[in-house]
């Protein structure tokens, strides 16, 4: 029987395994070094914050794997020998495979900062990182201040985590506004304000100089590049992005760049070896996507697609419309389609922006300047319906249409205040239209479902 071995029990590897099991009777083994069972990395913050226990981050009960005949091995793969089709698992143990799926995820970036390997300097990626954080920053007595380096999604999560234990946080962001490489200025500005309102010492346009060592090889302070300001701290969080975790593949013959190079079928240069999830790098980016897509959803989608290929129905990884979500402290964010930042905007792209006068709510709609075709939406503090926007993107709707039927897309809990009226009036003023928002209709919402 064909033996499929998957390295990495993250969302990508596990999704592939589940779907292969549904489609076939092949022998499936997952080798992973971080934890015995699959857990949701995205939930690590909630464990530190006391919302959940670690076991709550595991989406499947422990019996699930055996019942579905998915064999789990907790080991680190140090080498892939594709000629003999075996893996080295350390201690001279070897594992033979017929088909290999590499789904080893990412690791936090380190840019060669002086002191980056001191104790008390860490990223937030793995369960071990979480455990380490619990040791370094159990409370604000032991950790009197933390400095976080890198203004992305994980950085802000780490800041929120530390604040939940009342640890003072300094947040160094290289850009002059939070995440403005992705978010349009208005939104980025709102998040800046929100971060400060949470008593986080946000330093915009500030870069890390070096990390200074104290006793016992522990970090005691950092300096800011340029002005040399020293900030004493007990924890330094490095959250300046992630890179594929593929060092063990160097010189294996598998083609790698930053990630494992794959074609649209997620095949590497070697027959019977595939790569999915954070560690896979497309030869050519798909549409507006990046060649390496390090998000949860794409890992899952690659797993879904690859399972077909491995089970004989060769199918390309062909993701639909882009979507994503995050939460910035108290503000939920969702995006559907493409809305680029003010700087990164395409030359055909125009934005309509609405922000509530007092609440932390705003939306940005991107559209084509000539045709006014709807290209995407960012929404903060207002939940929106994925299905509806996916459909409107497929139907290439005019922005006037989207505005008119915006109520269909609202996904906020029942009884919440609605803002479509305000949004539509601002739109009317800005574009000289005379749109009246249509009442929400179940018929429209479900018509193509």
């Amino acid at each position, binding site marked *: 029987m064909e033996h499929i071995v998957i390295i990495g029990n993250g969302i990508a590897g596990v999704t592939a395994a589940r*779907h292969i099991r549904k489609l076939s009777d092949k022998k499936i083994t997952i080798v992973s070094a971080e934890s015995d069972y699959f857990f949701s990395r995205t939930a690590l913050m909630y464990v530190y*914050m006391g*919302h959940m226990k670690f076991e709550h981050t595991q989406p499947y009960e422990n019996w699930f794997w055996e019942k579905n005949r998915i064999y789990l091995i907790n080991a680190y793969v140090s080498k892939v020998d594709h000629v003999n089709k075996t893996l080295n698992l350390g201690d001279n143990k070897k594992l033979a495979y017929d088909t290999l799926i590499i789904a080893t995820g990412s690791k936090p970036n380190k840019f060669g900062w002086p002191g980056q390997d001191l104790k008390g300097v860490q990223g937030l990626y793995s369960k071990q990182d979480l455990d380490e954080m619990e040791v370094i920053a159990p409370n604000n007595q032991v950790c009197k201040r933390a400095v976080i380096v890198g203004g992305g999604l994980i950085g802000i999560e780490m800041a929120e985590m530390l604040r939940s234990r009342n640890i003072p946080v300094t947040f160094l962001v290289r850009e002059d506004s939070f995440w403005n490489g992705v978010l349009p200025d208005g939104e980025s500005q709102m998040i800046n304000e929100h971060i400060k309102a949470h008593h986080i010492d946000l330093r915009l346009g500030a870069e890390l100089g070096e990390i200074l060592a104290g006793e016992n090889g522990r970090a005691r302070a950092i300096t800011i590049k340029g002005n040399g300001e020293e900030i004493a701290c007990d924890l330094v969080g490095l959250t300046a992005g992630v890179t594929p975790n593929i060092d063990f593949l160097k010189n294996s013959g598998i083609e790698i760049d930053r990630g494992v190079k794959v074609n649209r079928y997620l095949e590497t240069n070697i027959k019977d070896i595939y790569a999915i999830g954070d560690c896979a790098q497309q030869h050519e980016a798909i549409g507006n996507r990046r060649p390496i897509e390090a998000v949860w959803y794409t890992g899952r989608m690659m797993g879904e697609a690859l399972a077909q290929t491995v089970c004989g129905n060769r199918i390309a990884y062909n993701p*639909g419309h882009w979507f994503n979500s995050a939460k910035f402290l108290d503000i939920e964010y*969702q995006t559907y389609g493409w809305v680029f930042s003010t700087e990164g905007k395409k030359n055909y792209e125009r934005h309509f922006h609405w922000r509530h006068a007092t609440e932390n709510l705003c939306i940005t709609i991107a559209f084509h300047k000539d045709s006014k075709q709807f290209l995407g939406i960012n929404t903060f503090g207002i*939940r929106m319906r994925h299905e509806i926007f996916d459909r409107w993107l497929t139907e290439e709707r005019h922005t006037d249409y989207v505005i008119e039927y915006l109520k269909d897309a609202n996904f906020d*809990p029942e009884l919440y205040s609605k803002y479509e009226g305000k949004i539509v009036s601002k739109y009317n003023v800005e574009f000289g239209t005379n749109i009246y928002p249509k009442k929400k209709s179940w018929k429209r919402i479900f018509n193509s479902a």
Partner: protein
Amino acid sequence: MKTIKYSGLVVFLIGLGIFTILPLIGAYRLDQSNFDDIVKDKDFNSELFVEEINNNVVGKEFNGMMGLSAEVKKSLNQANAQHRENKEYDKVIYTSGKDMAALLGKASGTGFIAQNKGVMWFLTFGLGIIGALLFILPNVILLGKAGIKNDGIYHQNSTNRGWIAWAVFVFLVSFYLVLYFAPQFAVNWTYLVDPISESLSGNPAGHWFVYGFMYCTVMTVMAVRMYIKYRHNVYQMVRTTSVLFFQIVFAFLIPEIMVRLQMPYYDFKNIFPLDYDFFFSWNLNELMSSGGIGLFILVWGIALTLVAVPVMVYFFGKRWYCSWVCGCGGLAETLGDPYRQHSDKSLFAWKVERWLIHGVLVFAVVMTVMTLYSFFSESGTVMGIKTQSVQNVYSLAIGSIFAGVIGTGFYPIFGNRVWCRFGCPLAAYLGFVQRFKSRFRITTNGGQCISCGNCSTYCEQGIDVRAYAQKGENIVRSSCVGCGICSAVCPRGVLKLENGPEEGRINPTEILLGNDVNLMDLVNRK
């Protein structure tokens, strides 16, 4: 702020402490005249019992209920034993020893407690309410900006099954044991609320009145906590107000006022089979002898079960009752909210749940069929089984132990909906309708779930919400009470409770929205 909070805790604990020792202290002396009144009122046939009480109890000073209760029980047992021996069955008194002790005890209180009801009310309920509010209100500031407030739940002893949780467990269980099985020890508590009871129904308070009053008080105070904790969430605010309203007005005030107006005591929102004794013969007899209002209640009660349940559940899901109206649900959503994360999410627990809750439903229905058969055929037995015994078993095992002692007492350990999830026969019935014929569902927002598990962790009904959400599948489960917390805690805006068209409500998916449309078509079509 923290100082206010912790002084509030101290005040609360003092109030609670005094309340807790009340059952064990107090002076009792049964005056001759009081006893004579009781004898006249109750019309005991047993002169032996009256004589025993006259000799052993009347005029004597008892310190604490223990002694008095023992004497009363002894007298009652002796008298009954004598009558049985003499085959004077008409003289046997069927009131139980504990109830008799409660009855006589209530008329005997003499000391400080019985004479200073107002002061004692303040020292118990008053301090409890003030202390609790002082403890809760600073959260407006301490909790910071509006938003999800679950920080530290699994770090705190009280909400992570630590010793405080176990202490609360012991307290709650003991409280329910006293209430159901040793009401004579609740006599001192009844004094505290006599003035309130008298102003409502005109009668002095019994232990059930204490319970009702306390229930409303606890719910109100803990509702304040809910308002602060969920102040960013309108659904939670409105729902909390609704359960509070129904508890105070329908379960507490209206029945008491009806008694004052010589009408039957009736809670207009308590639906059979939760209201399991609705069809018991004593209730039917009382209703039928109460004229127009009795008849109205009879029709109303039947209509609730046969019409309101299916119609309302069809349009709104079982939440209209379980988390907007019901008193059990109301307590669970207020007092129980800090414990919601303890419901077991395993598949095993789900199996146990289905056996138990449907077992109770079958039990309730069988009992009621027997009851009605007995009522109309005027025979006490059905196929050789005594209806009365079946009723007694149900009242004890389900009505008292399951719904009360376990249902509420186990909050801090097994979560706040133990009864609603595993035991309530009405919930089982509402659940059937919700599962098979309803517009209600929790919609999953396409492919947005990140499998974080917040929803499952905070589902009080032990539903593994994530298992559905991460497959892009709507949640249609008979046990969901529509509390809306899963939707509130989801950090990605994945879940929405809504009433929509039945078609497409249940949507099993394998490939989630956002992936290749052809692949979705290929896999999801089958």
